[in-house]
């Protein structure tokens, strides 16, 4: 049943397969982001309470959702790396952590820039904001561990353990607005009922969300390929690739 997956556990096959997908991810993300951010900035309506500041929402919420989604993906890769000793899973942890950290930083900064005019403060040590800040530190911890060891497989193991332990933070972030009293509002999109917003705001949001998701896929693809090469630099197929590339570039 899982036989079709096996070839993709081969680093060389994965490297070339990812390379084929990257231009598609790029094109889709550019189209969706131009369309989505255009709608978000110029065509979506102003909020009846928050005015034009609501346009920060189209960055803040996709970035926050992706910061958690990427972490979940990284933790699943970490589990795969530890249990099945899959080297490609270690490469994907290393590729995902900087992307997740970037989106967490975006979620935090856009949140602060939205909080100042709406709540009257850039920052408050409440549950949602603090747990999202901890998520940033978890990402930075994974990146630091990844670079702390000369031996890549030891580094991958250490980073995997931290990534898995950190998963406990995800439900805390998600439910923080229900469990504790907080300035942060409850969920508008990621809940089981219908999203509580009008269609002309939901459409730009969802287009932006998928646009950013494809951007993540594209950046992940590039970093994943680089990590595969770095981890397989002694293999003959990498040597051939390097020599071929030298020939086409004409040194």
């Amino acid at each position, binding site marked *: 049943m899982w036989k079709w997956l096996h070839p993709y556990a081969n680093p060389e096959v994965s490297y070339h397969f990812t390379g084929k997908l990257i231009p598609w991810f790029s094109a889709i993300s550019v189209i969706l982001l131009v369309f989505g951010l255009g709608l978000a900035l110029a065509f979506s309506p102003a909020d009846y309470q928050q005015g034009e500041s609501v*346009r920060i929402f189209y960055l803040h919420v996709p970035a926050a959702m992706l910061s958690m989604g990427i972490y979940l993906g990284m933790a699943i890769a970490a589990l795969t790396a530890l249990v099945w000793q899959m080297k490609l899973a270690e490469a994907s942890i290393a590729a995902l952590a900087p992307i997740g950290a970037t989106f967490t930083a975006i979620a935090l900064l856009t949140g602060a*820039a939205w909080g100042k005019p709406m709540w009257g403060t850039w920052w408050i040590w409440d549950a949602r904001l603090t747990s999202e800040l901890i998520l940033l530190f978890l990402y930075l911890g994974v990146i630091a561990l990844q670079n702390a060891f000369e031996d890549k497989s030891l580094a991958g193991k250490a980073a995997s353990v931290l990534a898995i332990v950190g998963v406990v933070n995800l439900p805390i972030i998600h439910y923080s607005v229900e469990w504790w009293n907080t300035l942060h509002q409850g969920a508008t999109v990621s809940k089981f009922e219908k999203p509580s917003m009008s269609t002309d705001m939901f459409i730009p949001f969802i287009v932006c969300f998928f646009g950013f998701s494809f951007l993540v896929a594209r950046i992940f693809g*590039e970093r994943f390929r680089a990590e595969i090469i770095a981890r397989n630099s002694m293999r003959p197929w990498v040597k051939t690739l390097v020599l071929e590339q030298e020939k086409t570039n004409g040194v």
Partner: protein
Amino acid sequence: MAFDSLREFFNMGGYAFYVWLSYGFSALVLIILAINSNGMEKQIFQQIKQRLKREEKLKQAALRRKEGK
């Protein structure tokens, strides 16, 4: 269109600083991440190339030493 003029668009109903700070910061960090990710593979290729050259030199030197004896 939610705005009547370009000036109103840039003014963002008085929230210009916060809205453009958010969009500006997000664009900046994403561009840095994209450029960094784009250059990563080339950089690693370069390192491997240097290593291969070094190995080739060592091999040649070893061969010469053998012939010299």
